[in-house]
């Protein structure tokens, strides 16, 4: 063990203050949060800080296609990151793509987490027939690898951001449910729960105030992994030809389109969106990692 025994100063502070102080203790996590905020800001401000609206076909010209970074586009601006095969300025396309990727990743991650968490807790606490039923449904869901579920759903539903989010939620909720249930199952049998029951604390309160916080560590691990994989999965679906529409590319679609150019030396079409994706996912993960450390009562020094 590396932690040395520093006597803890007793100070009156609210839980949130304590959380905040602990979170910003880590420089890496703070930097990651900063980067993530900048990424979000760039995505939100995209229409005002890019020279081209990549979704407006009147502004995109195939004659500007495949230009290397630093080339001048026909309308006169410089394409600092080059252009893709259809003539989209990659800088503009990446910022617009970020909006879609972030929406897809975060929305599906949060919705799936909430659904999965509630279902998992209910299963773990209720036990009996309810648990058996829920876990069979979870098994049913997990019978299909997320990539397959999403693949089938998107193939059936058609293209569109809302459909991708729906597909990813359906594909992922069971992971959360199973994780929560597995942890809660262990927690359920611990003394403090029995003690709480003896004290006559309501089931609801036991589950949400006492068991849930103890489930947070694995949930956040799974959550960060799943949010990252949601963004990545969307790219994979695009690669397989059932992702988001070509003309309104997410980062995933940009990478998938650029994939065809990888051997041809036009690295920028795939590499720059790839870097943007990497930066986004890594910053989410670093924040998530640290959050887990901060939130987990058992890791407290």
């Amino acid at each position, binding site marked *: 063990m590396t932690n040395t025994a520093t006597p803890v100063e007793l100070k009156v502070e609210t839980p949130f203050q304590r959380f905040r102080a602990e979170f910003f203790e880590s420089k890496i996590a703070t930097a990651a949060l900063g980067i993530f905020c900048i990424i979000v800001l760039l995505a939100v401000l995209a229409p005002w800080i890019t020279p081209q609206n990549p979704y407006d076909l009147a502004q995109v010209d195939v004659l500007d296609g495949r230009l290397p970074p630093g080339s001048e586009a026909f309308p006169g601006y410089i394409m600092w990151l080059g252009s893709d095969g259809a003539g989209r300025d990659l800088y503009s396309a990446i910022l617009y793509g970020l909006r879609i990727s972030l929406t897809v990743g975060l929305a599906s991650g949060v919705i799936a987490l909430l659904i999965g968490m509630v279902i998992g807790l209910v299963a773990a606490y209720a036990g009996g027939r309810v648990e058996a039923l829920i876990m069979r449904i979870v098994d*049913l869901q997990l019978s299909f690898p997320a990539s397959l579920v999403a693949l089938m759903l998107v193939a059936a539903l058609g293209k569109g951001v809302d459909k991708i989010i729906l597909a990813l939620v359906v594909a992922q909720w069971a992971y959360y449910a199973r994780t929560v249930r597995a942890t809660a199952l262990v927690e359920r049998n611990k003394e403090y729960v029995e003690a709480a029951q003896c004290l006559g604390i309501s089931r609801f309160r036991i589950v949400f105030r006492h068991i849930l916080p103890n489930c947070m560590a694995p949930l956040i691990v799974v959550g960060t992994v799943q949010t990252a994989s949601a963004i990545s999965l969307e790219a994979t679906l695009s690669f*397989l030809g059932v992702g988001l529409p070509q003309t309104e590319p997410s980062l995933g679609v940009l990478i998938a389109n650029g994939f065809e150019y990888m051997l041809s030396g036009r690295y920028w079409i795939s590499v720059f969106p790839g870097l943007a994706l990497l930066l986004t996912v890594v910053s989410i993960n670093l924040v998530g990692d640290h959050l887990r450390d901060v939130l987990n009562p058992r890791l407290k020094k």
Partner: protein
Amino acid sequence: MTVFIIRRLLQALLVVVLMSVIVFFGVNIVGDPVYMLVSPDADQDDIAAAIARLGLDRPIWEQYLLFLKGALQGDLGNSFIFGEPALQLIMHHMPATMELAFTALMLAIVIGIPLGLYAGLYSESPLSKGIMAGSILGFSLPTFWVGLMLIMLFAVELGWVPATGRGDTATFLGIQSSLFTPDGLSHIFLPALNLALLKISLAIRLTRAGVREALGQDYVKYARAKGLTTRRIIFVHVMKNIMIPVVTVMGLEFGSLIGFSVVTETIFAWPGMGKLLIDAILQLDRPVVVAYLMIIVLFFIVINLIVDILYSLLDPRVRLQDQGA
């Protein structure tokens, strides 16, 4: 234990039937296979004949009943495209996928758990930070992209291993696999690594998280107080506790490996059932899609069962029972 297993199997049967309904109807609302199959030269009569020959002119519930009737006799229908029984086709492709997924899982465990253990025990060391940074890269990059990069580096630039396909096979202990020949191993290395990357990262993170958590717990403190060696504490007590989530997740991940093999097999032209599935989906070979999904469902039910049993062996506090069910 036996009662538990029997009950689980009965539940599984229900799941399979339910799943067959969902899958069959789900698959049958997508697209129109006839136009994927007939030659462009076909006229309207030929198209109508093809529809009838494939049984697509019947109402969907009738098609389902026919499917169910066949399924009870072990016949999941014939592939539209290959004309062979879908089940047989999948069984042909299964060994290649299984050996790929198995190799990837082994890589994930062999590489991921020790790295995770190290990163958990010495979380402040630069090497640990490097491991964690690497693990984040591992699941941040899309599989297909990394796959092509691996091919470019190891096969095209360095020329160490072949870029695509499956190598020679040999039979050992009654199992025919390409894992038993040098040629086979050289072929499987890249796709298995590609498939494993995500899981290596996951194993690292899970193990590290588990170790860090365990180190703060009372039993470790007691063990220390009792004077047990660090080695013994880590490898007996800590490992035993952290194996639960790792076993759970890795067990579940075996399925996701098979799911993700769709992408890896496409990139590496690996003749497995993932490739078969994506081709079947893209060409609307419905019987193959349905049969594949049914097999996967069965497969997962078995895996879940095994994971639950392992659970009980690793953690006596989790009892094998479904109260009241």
